[in-house]
């Protein structure tokens, strides 16, 4: 294969990685930005989204596109509900203490993972893609569904951005992010905001998972890699900065993909981790994060 087609394939693959990474990382960043909670269980919300999609598509049956759309609508809602419940039952009672919430979310990670193992099982199970169309280029074929993932992820991200900047709920969230106490003084129920943000963050991870599950099967250990990459992305982009997170996701997704393509996936991981170290040393607030005191 010549260099041109090789690069094209690498770019397409990386774009898919970047798209789902952006969704997952934005969820993580949002939770940190507003709640100051480092959610170690974020990858498990991703996994729960995939597992929920499997249950939903299997339960509904019917044509694959219909089952998939239902999963895309219902799985994130289910995961968001679980997240809101976790926030109310656990995080709120810990008063969102940074150290306590880290330990609590580590606990949640194991609970979700073992719950999936018990109720879903240890095997990887596939969800049928909504369509099986393949784009045939002169040098190679490519799944059209994968390309549609990029488009769908972009749409969801635009939706999140509009929600945060144009809606009243988004305004309330941003107000809470800037100053929780002042927001409370203005009559904002920050407990509800926190629950909503935690649910939204988990829901975004779940959407990413539903999009990815027709490509990679649902498996109880699948939350590990997205968590790692999402953390890297959020640190590079600047904790709490959505714009920074999206740009970092594209940067990391593309570089990870390209390096993995032309050299090796291990080298890609090494370089991404090195990038995190460099950012932490030279620009601790992240590439786009505002310096906070």
């Amino acid at each position, binding site marked *: *294969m010549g260099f041109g087609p*090789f690069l094209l*394939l*690498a770019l397409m*693959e990386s774009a898919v*990685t970047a798209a789902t990474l952006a969704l997952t990382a934005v969820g993580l960043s949002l939770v940190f930005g507003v709640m100051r909670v480092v959610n170690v269980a974020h990858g498990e919300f991703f996994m729960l989204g995939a597992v929920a999609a499997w249950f939903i598509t299997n339960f509904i049956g019917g044509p*694959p596109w219909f089952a998939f759309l239902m999963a895309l609508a219902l799985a994130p809602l289910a995961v968001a509900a679980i997240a809101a419940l976790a926030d109310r039952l656990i995080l709120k009672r810990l008063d969102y203490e940074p150290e306590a919430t880290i330990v609590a979310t580590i606990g949640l990670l194991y609970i979700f993972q073992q719950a999936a*193992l018990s109720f879903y*099982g*240890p*095997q*990887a199970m*596939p969800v*049928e*893609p909504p369509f*099986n169309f*393949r784009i*045939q280029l*002169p*040098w*190679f*074929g*490519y*799944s059209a569904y*994968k390309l549609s993932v990029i488009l769908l992820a972009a749409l969801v991200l635009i939706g999140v951005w509009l929600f945060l900047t144009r809606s009243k709920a988004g305004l309330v969230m941003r107000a809470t992010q800037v100053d929780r106490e002042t927001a409370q003084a203005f009559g904002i129920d920050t407990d509800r905001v926190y629950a909503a943000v935690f649910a939204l963050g988990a829901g975004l991870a779940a959407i990413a998972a539903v999009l990815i599950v027709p*490509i*990679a*099967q649902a*498996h109880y*250990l*699948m939350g590990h*890699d997205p968590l790692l990459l999402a953390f890297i992305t959020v640190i590079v982009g600047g904790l709490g900065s959505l714009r920074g997170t999206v740009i970092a996701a594209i940067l990391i997704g593309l570089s990870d*993909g390209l390096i*993995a*393509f032309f050299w090796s*996936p291990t080298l890609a991981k090494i370089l991404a981790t090195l990038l995190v170290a460099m950012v932490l040393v030279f620009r601790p607030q992240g590439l786009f994060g505002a310096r906070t005191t």
Partner: protein
Amino acid sequence: MTKHLIGHAPSRRSVLKGMGAGLVAASAFPGYTWAQSSAPIKLGFQLHRTGIGAAYGRWYERTAQAALKVLNDGGGINGRPVEIVFEDDATDPKRGAEVVEKLASQAGCDAIFGPLFSHVVIGSAPRAGELKIPYLVCSEGYHVASGMLNRWTLQPGITDVRAQVSSMAPWVMQNLGKKVTMVYPDYAFGYDHRDFFTEAVKAQGGEVIAQIAIPPTETSFTRYLPQIPAETEVLYHVMVGPAVLTFVKELGDFYGSGARPQIFGFIDSLEAVDTATPGLEFLEGTHFWEGHNRVKQADASEAETFYRAAVGVDDNGASVSDAKDVSTYAHMFSCWETLFIIKQGMEAAGYQGPADRQKFVEAIEAMTAFEAGNDHPQGAKMFNGKTHQVFGHQFISKVEGGKLIRVHQTAIEDGMYPDAVDYTTQSF
């Protein structure tokens, strides 16, 4: 009740009393050795219930259970009933060694069998050797016959990769092509494929032009596929782990409807996966190695029918209760056959209890051949007691109409190679 005990060390009087009671109890049952010989024989099964081998584990457990029922219905071993203790090793080498320890020391098993993944076997076998417990693996790896393991480790239920690939290489060269690219998992099992298929191809006048190793935990494969050289005539693939379906699907997407080499895969890449899954249509006309034909062939033996029914597998290789639950048919016969070899070995050794473990291993080492039948539904085999390795027939199947149809069967001798070790000269 227990509350009162906390903080109190047992008094000397109570210790003496307890010891006295123990002595009385021991002398009151002089028939203990007699009682033991009618007590159940306990076998430990090291199971990949979770982790990357979970698909195999699910079916290995079912196969072992089915074999156990047949065994006990037929009178057990030496007239004694048999129990199997299943213990999950999470397909993890470190956990594997712990499981061996647990089955041997805590559960008090007479022998252990069942593990498949080669890195787990390599990680666990030394512990079995230290504990001096027979360890019968079902792992296909060349690590048994290579001499890497120990006298307590045997592989009497499944042919190793070295024999598998060298017996099939001539057919692949003659029918598919001479320039081969190999895609294999990046660990011991994959290296056996790499080393011995490359060697066998060379011996046939062919050439392996590229070797692509992929980590078994990988979830995305397209990035590796452009490394396949365009002049490849045969693409040889073998993959394991939870993402095998993704691997095969992405391979299909990559070649699409364009030109592609002949594809020869190990069924490992598709174990527990339905060949009729949407997106796998491209497999039509490609070839697979099978250790045991998943789809019931037209000339299936009576033993084959018996085995299929006992395990609960339909004619397509899926569970009789759920057509979507496809079995790991090409490998799982090894659990069944190993259990019946344990029976044969224990009966030949006059096995009474753990003191006879050495006699049991020696009895298996003395075996030379297994005849096809209900105990050996996969077919006849030859056993090499020196290398602790069995050799059987291998099958090459072609996907026709979405089903795997056998097109070639190797002779047992095709896979034989010179001994690299003589375990019988090693001490126990």
